[in-house]
């Protein structure tokens, strides 16, 4: 699979990571070599096989939907880069 600069810009935008122009050629070559290795998968016919999303059949042991006070908002927000009165601050979203 060829990765064009257009494809790279698209996935960089989807993943919200700004890519430095200078590293684009090396990045494209790395991504292409990884995808070339990945495409080995096409050698095998999987037409009647179910996809497996999880190693265990018995996953999803869900606990009751009960609110706890185990972790308080203030404790969580101690690590936030910018807060005000319990709110997380971001640049203005709506003008």
């Amino acid at each position, binding site marked *: 699979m060829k990765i064009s600069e257009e494809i790279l810009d698209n996935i960089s935008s989807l993943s919200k990571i700004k890519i430095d122009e200078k590293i684009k050629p090396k990045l494209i070559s790395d991504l292409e070599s990884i995808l*070339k290795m990945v495409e080995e*998968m096409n050698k095998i016919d999987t037409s009647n096989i179910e*996809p497996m999303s999880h190693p265990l059949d018995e996953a999803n*042991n869900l606990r009751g939907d009960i609110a706890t006070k185990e972790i308080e908002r203030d404790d969580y927000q101690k*690590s936030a880069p910018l807060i005000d009165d319990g709110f997380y601050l971001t640049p203005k*979203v709506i003008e």
Partner: protein
Amino acid sequence: MTDLTDFSLEDQIEGLSSKKFSSVELTSSYLKKIEEQNKVLNCFISINENALDEAKKSDLKIAKNDNGIMEGIPVAHKDIFCIKDQVTTCGSKMLENFVSPYSSTVYEKLFNSGTVNLGKTNMDEFAMGSSNETSFFGNVLNPIDPERVPGGSSGGSASAVAAKLCSFATGTDTGGSIRQPAAFCGITGIKPTYGRVSRWGMIAFASSLDQGGIFARSALDASIALENISGFDEKDSTSINKKAPSFYNEAKEEDDNHVVGIPKNIIENIKDAKVKTNFYESVKILEKAGVSFKEIDLSNIEYSLPVYYVIAPAECSANLSRYDGVRFGHRCENPKDLEDLYERSRAEGFGDEVKKRILIGTYCLSAGYYDAYYIKAQKIRNLIKESFVNAFKEVTSIMMPTCANVSFKLNSIQNPVEMYEQDIYTIPANLAGLPAISIPSGKINNLPLGIQFIGNYLNEGNILNLSNKFQQNTNFHNE
């Protein structure tokens, strides 16, 4: 004078509880060695300033006979396990200053069993790497040969255990991140069955593959530590709701029923002749100890690497979307709008390897490619699991090398695919969710080599028993 750090975990537990020495003495011995050697090895990102206080508390508990199973044992934690009110970096600039508001279950369980936390160990950034060269906090070196890598991603934990800077250490294994560094550093490393150890508070890389485990100096030591981090946790929906047995008892019992599978298609294709020779020499050692072997066919296993490099990046791209510069983690200076805040915070906070994997994952999950990559990989994953399930109808465990070679020199691998191939023998167990262990099996040019046993689901005791049998008949783990 006796060096307490030379003692095995088993002997340290006995020595502490019978008051032959104190936890303060033991902890001080380790702290002194860390101070001397960490400057070179760089295996710790942070040292716990309260370690001696914790040791004092343990000594008081021992004096009152109120001690936990591992009371006073000094342990190192991979810096992927959150500890309340301590910095947890995951080897990344993104989390350089992140102080966790809660503790991981693995840490809690070890704390409750009495262990003393020495500090947090270095690792590849977000556990993505096989050499510990992607850490924001610099390379870790291999204590066996400081020009070489310790392996990764749990390279700091492996290096610390090998250099005897802690009694044992925690680690995580998504595609080999415990077993490969254990092999490179000449120690024992076990990744249990997926779901055996809670992932609560263990920073996520690829959630259907990540599993916590243990580095130790022998299978018996590993069995003691592993049973103390295992068990059901309602905070992790993928935790297995079954009580973990005493792995230590299972590792020690007489078991004459081992039938070990040799996957012909893999062993025949080992490229390095010395690795192949070592494998067969290890088989002979076990045969002499009464273990039987059987050739098996693990079909489609050769697709493990491509399958892994779709599934792991796909899950990583989703998991790492939480680092947005808003709620925690690195935030760029003066963002001009919200988009700029996200894009620059992530560009500055993540290193190159992490970015690469997020981009690959995003690509494989994007419109038009999802079926061709992600669903295709999930289907082959099913076939790989099926191969193992069929093999375990005939054998009790499967043996293969841990790595294709011994540790390599720093900066010697630049091609990403060549680096990914490091995990060619370890990835299959993660895809299937099976327990697997690496133990030292000899040396090539004075560099350690490991062999790996893969067990059936929830059968950690079996591979620990087999490993112990090997270690009872060899001395590689003490060299």
